[in-house]
């Protein structure tokens, strides 16, 4: 039950729509827009927390807290810096840490006048945040499975995965070099796509 039906609709929430919904929340405090964002992101945020080992109750609670933050901070979302998915990911990640620590977490302030060089659309950046996401998505698909797996583990490791890695008995050096290869490939994909655009 629950979100069976709305989920179908939510699956079709493409990045430009997500960004316009965030804008509607920020500028008009639009509850319908928020509802659509909620149906798309809250179940994914909860899934992220479950992957990291939270029990169902804690995952639900943190997912709800994260969505409250999405509402409250919608006005600080900057589409030139991050896609909505990336922004929500950082909120969920930070909420999870807050929950574990009950302490503050250092956060980069994109408007900080001390940023060097000053923030703003980087002159050499050839694509915006949602284009970057799309290229990353494609590049992740093209990674050899063994490399894609260590990237996923880096973000979503839980006890189960550590156990799997222990079982497979992969030498640490192998895992580390796979991760380096993956990062190099992802960066190269971003750079190459950028050059194609020129």
């Amino acid at each position, binding site marked *: *039950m*629950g979100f069976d039906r709305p989920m179908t609709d939510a699956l079709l929430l493409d990045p430009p729509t997500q960004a316009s919904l965030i804008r509607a929340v920020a500028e008009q405090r639009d*509850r319908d827009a*928020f509802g659509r964002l*909620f149906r798309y992101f*809250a*179940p*994914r945020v909860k*899934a*992220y927390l*479950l992957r990291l080992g939270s029990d169902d109750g804690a995952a*639900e609670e943190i997912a*709800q807290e994260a969505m*409250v933050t999405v*509402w*409250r901070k*919608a*006005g600080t979302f900057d589409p030139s810096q*991050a*896609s909505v*998915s*990336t*922004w929500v*990911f*950082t909120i*969920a*990640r*930070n909420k999870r*840490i807050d929950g574990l*620590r*009950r*302490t*503050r977490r*250092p*956060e*980069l*302030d994109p408007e*900080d006048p*001390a*940023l*060097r*060089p000053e923030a703003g659309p*980087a002159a050499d950046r050839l694509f915006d*945040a949602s284009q*970057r*996401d799309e290229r*990353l*998505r494609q590049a*992740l698909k093209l990674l050899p499975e063994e490399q894609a797996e260590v990237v996923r583990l*880096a973000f*979503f*490791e839980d006890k189960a*995965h*550590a156990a799997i*890695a*222990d079982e497979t008995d992969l030498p*640490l050096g192998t895992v*580390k070099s796979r*991760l380096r290869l993956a990062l190099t490939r992802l960066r190269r994909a*971003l750079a190459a796509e950028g050059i194609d655009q020129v």
Partner: protein
Amino acid sequence: MMMSKHSAPDELILAHATGWLNEPLSLLVETHAALNEESRERLHEMEAIGGVLLDELEPAALREDALDAVLNRIDDAALHDAADGEPDALAAPARPRGVPRDGLELPATLRRYVGEDVSALNWRPLMRGVSEAEIEVGDGGRARLMRIEAGTMVPRHSHRGQEATLVLSGAYRDGELVFAPGDVQLADPEVDHRPQAIGDTPCLCLVVTDAPLRLTGPVGRLLNPFIKL
């Protein structure tokens, strides 16, 4: 003498992006990212990977009343803000305006920990020309500001634990390497070093030590930037 930038390694930035660093090292990475555009870009790229992976997760069912519960919390928070006289809950986090009292241009991330005047912190001398002030941080590890007067050389030393240093102002030399604002130096117990403040101004650094990294399992250890392979 090398003048190249000393950026944080991928492992350290990735450990921060994925949420596996403790608070003192997170503070160091965020402050470094504010001062080093290339590292900031790497951090944003890694967070974008997190966003893409979040998108692709199989959604988990929420409680049926979850959206209503969240809307109620939003309403309660709005009432609370109105009662507190807060103009707008949307406002960006408080950021000190204008020139800070100590005249130093430090990233806002760090300012939230050290306040508007670093000279007002509880400084204690370590030796002639070197003093330190503890910064209150949450879980694990220890963070401090260290101030080395211009020209002072810290005697050769090694560390009992691991140490990460971020230059905030001024510069120091360690052997052939020069560390300028935004630069990071990682040292483990085997590293034997003797930094010397260079230039005309004192060198101010953020130093994180003895941080037991909250990292477990093969992938966790993999993200530990101090483990060399």
